[in-house]
């Protein structure tokens, strides 16, 4: 009999995927922190740490939609914008009231993700009435609308509180007031309070949330809906409730990612969170494997770091990046490779079963 203890459970096939992802994150953190400590990490890579964490969290969220719910969401960046700019406002407002940066970051991320979750809930109402590519175009539309709205938003804070203005800047600030968001100039004067540690913690938390959802009753319901909606309905699963939950969680994580991202720069414009960014996050998710969180983490890190690493190629850089992307897609979907590795996997499973007896 196989001994059932903590370690075999952790590495059982079921838990293996989950454990791997946590381990990868923790080990990477440990390694990178020591490198930072000994000063052997280049400035280039150090500056990539927080953005990579932010994109990973947004991608994990998107994987909920695309990998588990089976919905093509092309507006993830719009939720990042909502979360990010909310966080900028909150952080700016609490600058004097909460001088502790870590606490302020925490509060800002919570507020940002709450706001995006709210928008996610509101938007899910029309979106989830549709299917397939129609759903995709509506998420794209909402993403663009959100970005448009934020580009035209003016927010200022002074002793009297928050002032909002839309399209034209009609705000007159009192003594000691500052503009937090200035329309097309974006969020300015942000204090950079995001840290790599916070990013890693955020990744771990999002993994916990997502895995909890996936491996729960709701999660199995979502997968049933994805695989066969009509069958799921006949079994009595409340399709719309479960899909809404997945959508809201995805939006919430995107908001948290946006908050982490925006608080890493002193100035961010809303047009950063456009269709192109949504597509980029989708690329990370698909390349990492739908529903595969470890894959998402690895693919995102790789694809964010890749164009930076290719800087030595100067003018050919983005061209080579495009070719690498195409080649990676062709390779990971190559039938021959798949069957070959499936054979290897079957062989190793067979061996395991034989030795376990």
């Amino acid at each position: 009999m196989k001994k059932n203890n903590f370690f075999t459970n952790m590495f059982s096939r079921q838990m293996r995927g989950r454990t791997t992802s946590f381990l990868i994150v923790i080990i990477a953190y440990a390694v990178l922190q020591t490198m930072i400590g000994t000063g052997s990490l280049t400035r280039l890579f150090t500056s990539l740490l927080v953005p990579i964490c932010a994109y990973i969290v947004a991608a994990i969220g998107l994987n909920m939609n695309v990998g588990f719910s089976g919905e093509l969401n092309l507006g993830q960046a719009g939720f990042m914008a909502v979360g990010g700019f909310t966080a900028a406002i909150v952080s700016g407002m609490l600058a004097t009231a909460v001088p502790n940066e870590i606490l302020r970051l925490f509060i800002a991320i919570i507020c940002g993700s709450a706001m995006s979750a709210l928008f996610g809930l509101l938007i899910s109402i029309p979106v989830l009435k549709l299917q397939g590519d129609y759903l995709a175009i509506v998420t794209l539309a909402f993403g663009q609308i959100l970005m448009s709205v934020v580009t035209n938003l003016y927010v200022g804070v002074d002793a009297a509180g928050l002032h909002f203005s839309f399209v034209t800047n009609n705000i007159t600030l009192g003594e000691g007031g500052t503009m937090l968001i200035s329309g097309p100039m974006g969020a300015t004067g942000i204090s950079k309070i995001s840290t790599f540690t916070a990013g890693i913690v955020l990744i771990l938390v999002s993994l916990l949330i997502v895995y909890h959802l996936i491996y729960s009753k709701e999660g199995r319901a979502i997968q049933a809906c994805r695989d066969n909606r009509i069958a799921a309905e006949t079994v009595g699963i409340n399709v719309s409730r479960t899909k809404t939950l997945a959508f809201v969680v995805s939006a919430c994580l995107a908001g948290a990612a946006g908050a982490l991202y925006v608080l890493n720069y002193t100035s961010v414009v809303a047009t950063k969170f456009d269709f192109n960014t949504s597509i980029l996050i989708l690329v990370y998710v698909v390349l990492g494997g739908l529903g595969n969180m470890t894959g998402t983490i690895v693919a995102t890190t790789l694809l964010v770091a890749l164009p930076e690493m290719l800087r030595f190629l100067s003018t050919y850089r983005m061209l080579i990046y495009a070719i690498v992307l195409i080649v990676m897609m062709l390779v990971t979907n190559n039938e021959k490779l798949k069957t070959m590795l499936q054979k290897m996997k079957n062989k190793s499973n067979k061996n395991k079963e034989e030795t376990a007896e």
Partner: protein
Amino acid sequence: MAFLSYLISGLGLGSVYAIIALGYSMVYGIAKMLNFAHGDIIMVGAYVAFYMLSSFGMPVIPAVLVSIVVCLVLGVAIEKLAYKPLRQASSLSVLITAIGVSYFLQNGALLLWGADTKIFPNALPQGSLDIGGLSVSYLSMITIAVNIIIMILLTLFINKTKTGRAMRACSEDKGAATLMGINVNRIISITFAIGSGLAAIAAVLLVSSYPSVYPTLGSMPGIKAFTAAVFGGIGSIPGAFLGGLLLGIIEIFARAYISTQLSDAIVFAVLIVVLLIKPTGLLGKKINEKV
């Protein structure tokens, strides 16, 4: 009076969206893939036509023909190299590959032809017809005419010819089509060829109306075409035409009567509302799911 003149502007703009959406919708309807690189094939077509007209001094029709041939070859090459190997994979994987192709074309164009904008020469008639105070540009009329001609030709092709019927068969059920002896690979290649040829025609019409030619020329029209195609019902050719026209009209009216800052947001909002009322687009077929 102003209303009518905006309507005409909207039709002019919409006809350009429509011709782009036609190629998009056709490829989607038959090959079931969202060719994100369609906008960039248009960009290549525009550059080729530009060089044919300005550097080689060709007259219009030969220049357009050269552009069509180049785009055709490009489209088929992309299909064979990047999409065909993924025939068995999920449609999402093909989408991502299409994005890679799109980046490739944009950056390739940047390296080949430089970053500065080129101005497309006035090859097509530029003036306009004045009817009782309203002016309709010849270019808009030509664009709409071309739209209608292509729609008729495509519909005839798909319904009457053997290849066309084979294309319809593929779009409904690839497996069954293969069993019926249809060479699915060949059909899909032909589809891409036609779609890319259409892209070249769309390119010339686009840059005749809006004469800036630059490497990222295709991205905004690509998104608008996708929107128009979905708006009108994916896979429906008359739907793409209708969707494109309506998109243009709504954009112009939103800009004129509501706000120039928010016109894009408003267009998308209208799209959402329409899709909620008609979830498969204006002329889209209702998808009957089999259990």
